[in-house]
């Protein structure tokens, strides 16, 4: 048992200060305002303070921190992307994630489990090979493996999917693929940002963004107006409601995405298993629950309702791969929102409006990019031009038809 826990036993009172303060009211002016208290927004506040000395920062969150995509995803981190731009970006994120618990002194349960993307057809195996080859070229640990390797690593799997589906031909295997306690990532950034002077305002909704002569002048909230010259929109599924305030057009479409957990089980599944054909990705949390997610709901909708179809389809897919799970029970299902881009890469960086920065288009890949997004968006805000790693993701790429095609690396067919 670590001696750190000793202090709890030796103190009569709980020897922990607040993780983050709850400021009474908004100031009149901040050097920067961040809309959205998810991992990305809090991460940007953290790196603005830590790496750029910008501490007069307000993070505005209409609900509670980490309550959007940050707390609704299935917590998978990986960097086995298809394009060099994407793979480099997500690899930086993985590198940051690995050291984040130490940096925060807060255990994020960052657990490298190994990540299998199963191929149920030769064509899909080709795409996995493409990803592996790009990854290897960039020094990312990623390889196409055969059935025997999968069976050895995940002996419980039915490689023939019970005959219900096409058999598994092979997989893309990415040993650094990890899961983490998603909420804790937001809390860690929140604490770090707060300690360095940033203010986190929960239950504070943005009602307008003041733009004068093409430059940001301030933010209207339900608790009053704030003057600022730099605004970051980091609200993922709610992005279109913010961009509408400043008259910015994006190609985002919003789809719901659903997930579920089972009752806790003793550990048996060590790897993260993804099957595009079965529209399924699953892992076992450190608490023992199987956490599984699906492909996007096939319609545009801004709603976080659950559907029975999803639970049925997901269950069928789980049994195709692991037929013995029939008696295991689903505990809970939920949904989140995904702001999808046409090329499955994010929209990041500067915009035509001076001082308005965007961090959006996080679709189904936002959580894994939390650290690198915070870091590069902070750099971009501090320097008022796009960080090297995110140049390819600027909103203007759509007008220029310079897309960064990551559809083939999306975890499941969307």
């Amino acid at each position, binding site marked *: 048992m670590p001696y750190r826990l000793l202090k709890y036993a030796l103190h009569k009172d709980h020897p922990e200060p607040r993780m983050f303060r709850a400021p009474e009211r908004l100031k009149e002016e901040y050097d920067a305002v961040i809309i959205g208290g998810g991992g990305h927004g809090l991460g940007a506040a953290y790196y603005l303070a830590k790496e750029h000395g910008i501490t007069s920062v307000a993070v505005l969150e209409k609900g509670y921190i980490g309550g959007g995509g940050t707390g609704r995803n299935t917590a998978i981190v990986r960097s086995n992307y298809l394009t060099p731009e994407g793979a480099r970006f997500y690899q930086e994120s993985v590198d940051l994630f690995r050291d984040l618990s130490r940096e925060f002194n807060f255990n994020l349960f960052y657990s490298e489990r190994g990540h299998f993307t199963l191929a149920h057809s030769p064509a899909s195996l080709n795409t996995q090979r493409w990803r592996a080859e790009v990854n290897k070229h960039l020094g990312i640990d990623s390889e196409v493996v055969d059935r025997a390797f999968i069976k050895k690593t995940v002996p419980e799997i039915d490689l023939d999917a019970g005959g219900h589906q096409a*058999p598994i031909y092979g997989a893309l295997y990415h040993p650094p693929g990890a899961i983490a306690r998603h909420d804790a990532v937001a809390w860690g950034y929140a604490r770090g940002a707060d300690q360095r002077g940033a203010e986190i305002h929960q239950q504070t909704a943005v009602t307008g963004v003041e733009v004068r002569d093409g430059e940001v002048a301030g933010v209207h909230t339900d608790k009053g107006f704030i003057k600022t010259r730099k605004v970051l929109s980091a609200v993922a599924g709610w992005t279109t409601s913010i961009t509408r305030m400043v008259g910015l057009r994006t190609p985002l479409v919003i789809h719901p995405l659903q997930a579920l957990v089972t009752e806790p089980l003793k550990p048996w599944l060590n790897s993260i298993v993804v099957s595009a054909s079965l529209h399924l990705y699953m892992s076992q949390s450190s608490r023992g629950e199987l956490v599984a997610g699906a492909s996007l709901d096939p319609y545009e909708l801004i709603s976080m309702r659950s559907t029975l179809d999803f639970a049925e389809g997901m*269950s069928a897919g*789980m049994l195709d791969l692991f037929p013995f799970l029939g008696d295991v029970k*689903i505990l*809970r299902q939920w949904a989140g929102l995904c702001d999808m881009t046409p*090329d499955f890469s994010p929209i990041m960086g500067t915009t035509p409006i001076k001082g308005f920065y965007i961090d959006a288009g996080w679709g189904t890949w936002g959580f894994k990019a939390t650290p690198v997004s915070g870091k590069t968006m902070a750099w971009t805000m501090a320097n008022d031009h796009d960080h090297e790693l995110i140049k390819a993701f600027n909103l203007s790429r759509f007008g220029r*038809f310079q897309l960064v095609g990551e559809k083939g690396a999306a975890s499941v067919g969307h």
Partner: protein
Amino acid sequence: MDRRLPPREGEWIDRSQPVEFRFEGQSLAGFAGDVLSSALWAHDVRLQGRSFKYHRPRGLYSLAGHDANVIVEDGRRTNMRGDLLPITDGLDVYSVNTSGGLQRDRWRIMERFDRFLPVGFYYKAFHTPRWLFPHYENQMRQVAGLGRVHPGNAAVETPKDYAFCDLLVVGAGPAGLAGAIAAAEQGLKVLLVDEQPHPGGSLNWQWSGNPAAQEQFGGMLEQVRAHDNIELRCGTQAAGAYNDYWIALVDDRRLTKLRAKAMLVATGCFEQPAVFQNNDLPGVMLASAAQRLLQLYAVKPFDRAVVVAANSDGYRAALDLHGAGVEIAAIADLRHDGEPTGLAQNAADAGIEILAGCAIAEAVPSGGKARIQAAAVCPLEKDGSLRTGSLRRIECDGIAMSVGWSPNVGLAYQAGGRFRYAEHVAQLVPSSLPDGLFVSGRANGRFELHDQIADGRRAGLCAAAHLGRFDGNLPDSPQHQASPPSHPYPIFSNNGKKNFVDLDEDLHLADFKNAHQEGYDNIELVKRFTTVGMGPSQGKLSNSNAIRILARLNGASINETGTTTSRPFYQPVRISHLAGRRFHPQRRTPLDGWHRQHGAEMMHAGAWMRPEFYTTSGSTRDECILAEAKNVREHVGLIDVGTLGKILVCGPDAARFLEHIYTGRFEKQKVGRLRYGVACDETGVIIEDGVIARLAEDRFYVSATSSGAAVFYREMQRWALIFGMKVTLINATGHLAAMNLAGPKSREVLAGLTDADLSPDAFPYVGVKEATVAGARAIVMRVGFVGELGYEIHVPASQGWHVWTSLMEAGRPHNIRPFGVEAQRLLRLEKGHLIVGQDTDALTHPFEADVAWAIGKDKPFFIGSRSLDIVKQQSLDRKLVGLSFPAHRSGPLPQECCLIIHEGEIVGRITSIAPASTLGHPIAMAFLRPDLANVGAKVTIRTTDGRTADAEVAAMPFYDPDGARQK
């Protein structure tokens, strides 16, 4: 010791059917109708489970599936709740999550370390040094988790069912029965479900001593059973409510998907525990659990009990227990004024000591904590805190808690209902309900039996009115008049550390204070940090107290504090129930059987099965494929292309519509001619290609790729609506069989079977004819996908077999052979024909795929045209080229998707490769940076093992560049 009582009126056990079962290796007996927990308690087995974190002893608590104290497994099934699991002969179960058995569980040492393990302790340690974390994590994973999975279990396929009704009534208690009857009397078709094996809800256990109530119960039950409009399903949980009253009903056998027109939620309440030291140990239970144990299973809960009460229900429970021979040592009434009704006198008359303004500060455990030996009763200050200086120890072996209720309204919440806290009942009540949703009874804050029945009746009539079956006056809903049935803050601390708020997660009061101190001060953050309500019982017994605690810590009201979101499922649902029989559609062409009979190796192609190649004894796969391909080049081959999409486009706007869909021109296409078409999405990315045959001025026949056809057809329909064109689309993919007869001898083979004039002048390349083939009506097209003279023949599916075998027969003198998908892929590669999805990716536009020639000149519009106008102005990043490998080479050959590397940079990617071709050497198609793509240029490809292979850029087509052979 036997705690079973003599037979009781209304008991659920069948004494004529003894049942033998085993628990933790011990043989025990019970009766049919017992659940595990009741049968164990009847033998005075109180230690029935261990808690999740500290492995504290736990016993039965709600006896209704509202807690998760007792969880067992049997080596096959796992995570079964002791208070829901019926005992059956041969049942042999063990508690989950122990080491060395329930009694001697080695992990019970965890409790000794509780001071080291405050809420969220795992966030504060184990992460440094980093290399040690996997070790710690592994340890934690081993101790976390509940039951084990059994990888040897066979797959279960469970059929699903569908049901329909006007009104779903959830809960067959007093309100639900009354509501169902009222609605059915107005002509509604009512489905009444209850999770318990018998109807009646609280009438079974709370009013069992009340003859008037039992008479009413009997009457209502008779009406329900007699009414043609009511179907009663017990043992059925309404597990989740989805949009438009789409409800998941789950029973032991299956999932039933119900579409109701309206829903009446009469689900009652979860009785809530009080929070005090050791409130989790075996012997401490909800008063309703003690009543259930007594009335339903005829088991005497305790010998001597203290009842902690804050409402009339507690007095009723005390009197029930007293009546069954339990000595009631005292009623500790949290209310300073005590019980206002005559029940107080009844209790006094029974000789029960009533301690008004007192709480229980602690349940005093016996050694080993598997039982309690006393209750420490303590007067309360006016502010509700304990006056701990005046503790009074009262010997007892049981504590029954009756301090309040929390409405069971998850379903109503999922269906769109919203709730607010009402002081007069000290619980949540509906604040707004969507059309068609009704809540009644205790869930609606009505607690007196007559009020529950009246409220149920009101809701039933409201449902009838909503569905247009009742237009009389709707009765008013009687409001709760008496004192609130719930205590506003039944939470007491004597500075002990074991006053549990969430039993699933072993969270005690200090955990909430500490979480709050750390800044987790709104309900969602509290939930996520402490994990309150996230255990197997999903907060049924903990959310309400957690909200009360947080509200007090924040100095806020319950309404300001809010609640967490209710999500399906009500109780956990088996994956096999949800998965059902796992129907995954698989499509087979009409010729599927023929292929299998003739040695075809079948492969999955999306939903289709297709012949990959035909096996020949003594030949390898690659040899077979090459032989099939060569036979096409030299003689003639026949391939089943029935998986191709086949879409008829008809109507006056058909040509104009196709000009919108495809990049090419079709308005001036001649009847009887084919054109190749490429379709893009709005961003100019290629999504489909195919052949468009004009059969008449207003009738086209379009083929689409096997994998893309379904989506493409859907897209065409969408666009037809958006464009508002007069066009009809018919997806004939499954109606027609299709086969491609290809090779220099194909004309000779076909000639004897058709009435069509096959002479090159009458039926030239890219011609199409409607003709007869082997007696079948056919569409015959001169296509050249594989680069030889060829005829694609489409006939009704029912004639496919006949036509295929006729062609095979006619081709026999010409050495005809069937060929599979792999040979076709090779042949088309030799011709440089791309396959959408293989040689194109999610960003490929026609310019880089070298099919810009298929874009019509000066077309005003097609889907993607605006984007392609912009793309056209830009220089190409890559283009699709041919690669040729030397015939005699060594080293590995690259596979598809291997990368082309130039000066350390990725400059291209193989999209298709043929290790052997009819040309005698390997060929490939690849994307390549244009400045490196001149014919004859050398390229280096990295193979998957990190070695390299050299190739040369080659002109495409590799084979028959002039296309002379297909003409």
